[in-house]
């Protein structure tokens, strides 16, 4: 086999000219060294894994922020978000004022047996009502139990990590810019 190579005039490779023994001994030394070093395996149920703040574990709901605008439900690729709401009329706050109407959230549920963790709902929510939480221990025996209502979704809210800090010299967040803007003054009457 190697004779063919030699007859074609190819020089023997370096590893072959050095013989077979050093390589074999090197292999033995490597494995022995690994045997001597402590393993860095952390076994999950005993030690909790470190999860970065951006981990997509479960979707938490901040109910106060939700306006039942249905954007998340409509953008969801596999329609796993259920939203029910009704309209409520608020009486006028000032005398002679106008009555206001608003949506009240009755039901917000995510079926995690359908969810594919794409995060589109979190991205699309204009009011920051949906958040990613790194929490992942919510396995169920029955697949039907994976449909979680708003109460359960709200319980995950405290596990949502604070957003990572902005880069240095980056622009201020939109909210801060808006808040710092000087209030508009009435235009001066023309003379």
């Amino acid at each position, binding site marked *: 086999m190697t004779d063919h190579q030699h007859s074609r005039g190819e020089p023997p490779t370096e590893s072959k000219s050095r013989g077979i023994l050093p390589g074999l001994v090197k292999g*033995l030394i490597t*494995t022995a060294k690994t045997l001597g*070093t402590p*393993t860095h395996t952390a076994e999950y149920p005993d030690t909790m894994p470190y999860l970065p703040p951006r981990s997509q574990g479960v979707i938490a709901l901040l109910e106060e922020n939700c306006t039942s605008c249905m954007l998340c439900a409509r953008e969801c690729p596999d329609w796993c978000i259920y939203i029910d709401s009704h309209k409520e009329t608020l009486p006028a706050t000032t005398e002679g004022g106008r009555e206001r109407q608003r949506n009240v959230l009755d039901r917000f549920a995510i079926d995690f047996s359908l969810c594919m963790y794409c995060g589109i709902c979190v991205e699309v929510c204009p009011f920051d009502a949906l958040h990613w939480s790194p929490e992942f221990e919510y396995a169920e025996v029955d697949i039907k139990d994976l449909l979680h209502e708003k109460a359960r979704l709200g319980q995950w809210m405290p596990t949502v990590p604070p957003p990572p800090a902005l880069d240095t010299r980056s622009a201020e967040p939109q909210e801060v810019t808006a808040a710092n803007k000087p209030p508009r003054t009435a235009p001066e009457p023309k003379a």
Partner: protein
Amino acid sequence: MNPVIEVVIRSVCVLAVFLVLPLLVGQTEHKVMAHMQGRLGPMYAGGFHGWAQLVADAAKFIQKEDITPRAADRTVFKLAPAVALVPYLVALAVIPISPTLVGADVDAGVLFVLAASGVGILGLLMAGWSSANKYSLLGGMRAAAQLLSYELPLVLSVASVALAAGTLSLTGIVDAWHPLWLLWQLPGALVFLVAGVAELQRPPFDMPLADSEIVMGPFTEYTGLRFAFFLLSEYAGIVVMSLLFTVLFLGGWHGLFSDYLGPLWTILKGFVIAVLIIWMRVSWPRLREDQLQRLAWLILVPVALAQLALTAVWVVLSSR
């Protein structure tokens, strides 16, 4: 003592050793291999560092369905695991742990062990042939080719030791052993170790099993308990080979306080050899089929013959 009772007691003891030592070696392999690869290995079965993993495995294997392929040669297929396993049990019975601690002290123990472990090959061939599966057949043929070529250097290196000791009895060989043999019989010992590992088809000589190319060789079609028997025979083979190596080349029970600690020395030396066999598995890649044959015929057989000649010359010169 009544000879019948004595035979029964000895057989039960050998059987117990046969069932316990391979499990110990298997567990050692689990843990040593894991740590050599930067893993932990089994950690939960039995509570403390997964000591009961193999017991749990056995419980699992027992529950599995015993499948025989429709096209298989049923009798041969079903008999094969037993043929692979029992020879090692028989071989273990005559290997002495100490001058008195031996299942059956046979006069030509060396011959007996080699003959018995040679039968084990038949089990693999039977499994490969009767499975009606091309991978099994390929594996069986490879096993036959490999075991036939490595039997020769194995026997030659053992012959050298037997010649040096002037006896075929295993106890006699250990009694005749001298520390200088470590040097004198070194080439033979290396040949025996390499050929022994090849006989067991352990990596780097696992061409017949080669799970990445022929699934599991002769064991492909086996399930459940029969498959477990093949696995057990592999580890029993390691035990037999390690103890045989200890007895032939490392002087068995010779050592400090060998009057009291004799058996312990044999077991300890055998264990070191078993760990060495595991170590080789973890460190080295598999040999190709042609490299395998080349190693046997072009290196091991000449070295074993040279060792035999050296031993013969030395024995003749020293006896004059």
